[in-house]
């Protein structure tokens, strides 16, 4: 079985498991909602202010939600030692990792689809005129978040206090991604919407670099 098909099987398995349990998506989505609402008490949510801190708020909510959601990705395989079973399958470790990354990407994207309208309404931000470009930024940011988050979830699953550990491992590494995503989103919400190339390039660079790294290092993450 080639890597692509093996990864597709893993994605299907993750999605099926999620739709049977329905715990990950619900919790993540409600958590992201809570963060978005809570922020309005920390700042004055007028339209002018919202435009200023809105992009940061949106991405902080996504990063926090992501770092919580990605944690069980490998940890829950430990409950029944199913990770060993996965590793015994005659497929490359990268296919397993890729499957997990794509599945997490799908979950996080689903959360974003539901979160964005609420965010736009609550903070009175006009997203529709820039939706196409915003989707590009969101996809690139989410992909970077899921690559690093999934890899670090495999790392954190080996340690004690793993629930607490993943955000600690993940958030400092995500600094460049957060910066680029927030600035790119802010550029889109400005009076004259513009997608700045530099930030787009940093996002692409982040994704390409860490995707390559996880491909090269997947053997070490999964053969133990």
């Amino acid at each position, binding site marked *: 079985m080639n890597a692509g098909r093996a990864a597709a099987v893993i994605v299907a398995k993750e999605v099926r498991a999620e739709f049977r349990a329905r715990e990950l998506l619900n919790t993540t989505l409600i958590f992201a909602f809570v963060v978005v609402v809570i922020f309005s008490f920390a700042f004055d949510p007028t339209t002018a202010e919202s435009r200023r801190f809105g992009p940061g708020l949106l991405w902080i909510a996504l990063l926090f939600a992501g770092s919580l959601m990605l944690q069980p990705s490998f940890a829950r395989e430990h409950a029944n030692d199913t990770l060993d079973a996965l590793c015994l399958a005659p497929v490359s470790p990268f296919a397993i990792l890729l499957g997990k990354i794509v599945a997490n990407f799908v979950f996080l994207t689903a959360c974003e689809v539901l979160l964005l309208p609420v965010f736009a309404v609550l903070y009175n931000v006009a997203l529709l005129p820039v939706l196409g470009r915003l989707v590009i930024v969101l996809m690139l940011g989410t992909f970077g978040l899921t690559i690093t988050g999934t890899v670090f979830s495999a790392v*954190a699953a080996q340690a004690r206090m793993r629930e607490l550990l993943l955000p600690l491992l993940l958030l400092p590494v995500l600094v460049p991604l957060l910066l680029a995503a927030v600035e790119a989103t802010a550029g889109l919400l400005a009076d004259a919407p513009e997608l700045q190339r530099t930030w787009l390039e940093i996002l692409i660079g982040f994704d390409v*670099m860490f995707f390559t790294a996880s491909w090269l290092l997947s053997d070490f993450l999964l053969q133990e």
Partner: protein
Amino acid sequence: MKNSIWQSLVVGALMAVAGYAALFIAPDEKTMHVIQRIFYFHAPAGMVALLAFTIVFIANIAYLINRQPRWDWLAVSGAEVGIAFNSVVLITGPIWAKPAWGVWWAWDARLTSTLVLWLLYISFLLLRDLMADPDRRAVFSAVYGIFLFLDVPLVYFSIRIWRTQHPQPVILGGQNSGLDPTMRKVFWFCWLAMTGVMAILIHQRYKLEQARHEFEELRLRAEQLSAEEPGISPPAGAMRT
């Protein structure tokens, strides 16, 4: 043992001369005067911290390639020593900034990226603390360490763009632009002394890690023996690692 005393003496002498040179030989700076002299320790410490993190990266890769525990020992030693020098940078920076800029801290590009660098390697050490099994700890922290080091240029690059796009309340002039020849000599001497301190610290920390490893193996052997012969039990103190 004797070797390390000699090394410490040499590096101690280097540091003493560096301190003297920074305080008395280097010429007085025109606008900042005496507070500028902290630069001779601040900047070399920053360079040495980066060097230590580079050693961590090399050790991480080497461990994944040949799986010898000594590379893991080097990685943890380098990370701890790098954090120490990075802390020196983060402490001496505000001491200088308060009289020079009027504030302890500004979210300037260099300050911010140094702080993020510190956070990155603190989480590396934290991860290692929370993993009990030595082999797993070595493999997984090596993978994490490689990701961290790849992140460093992105952090520097993105923060630099971020901070130059915004107006800055304070101005950080290029320190190295047009440094006085005597200043430059003193600076590089301080750098040499600092690198010596780093080498000694890493070496000592490495030996400590090695001793721990040997102790752990002895403890396991003692446990096996006591399992075979109930009469022999490992000394009580040896049960803890």
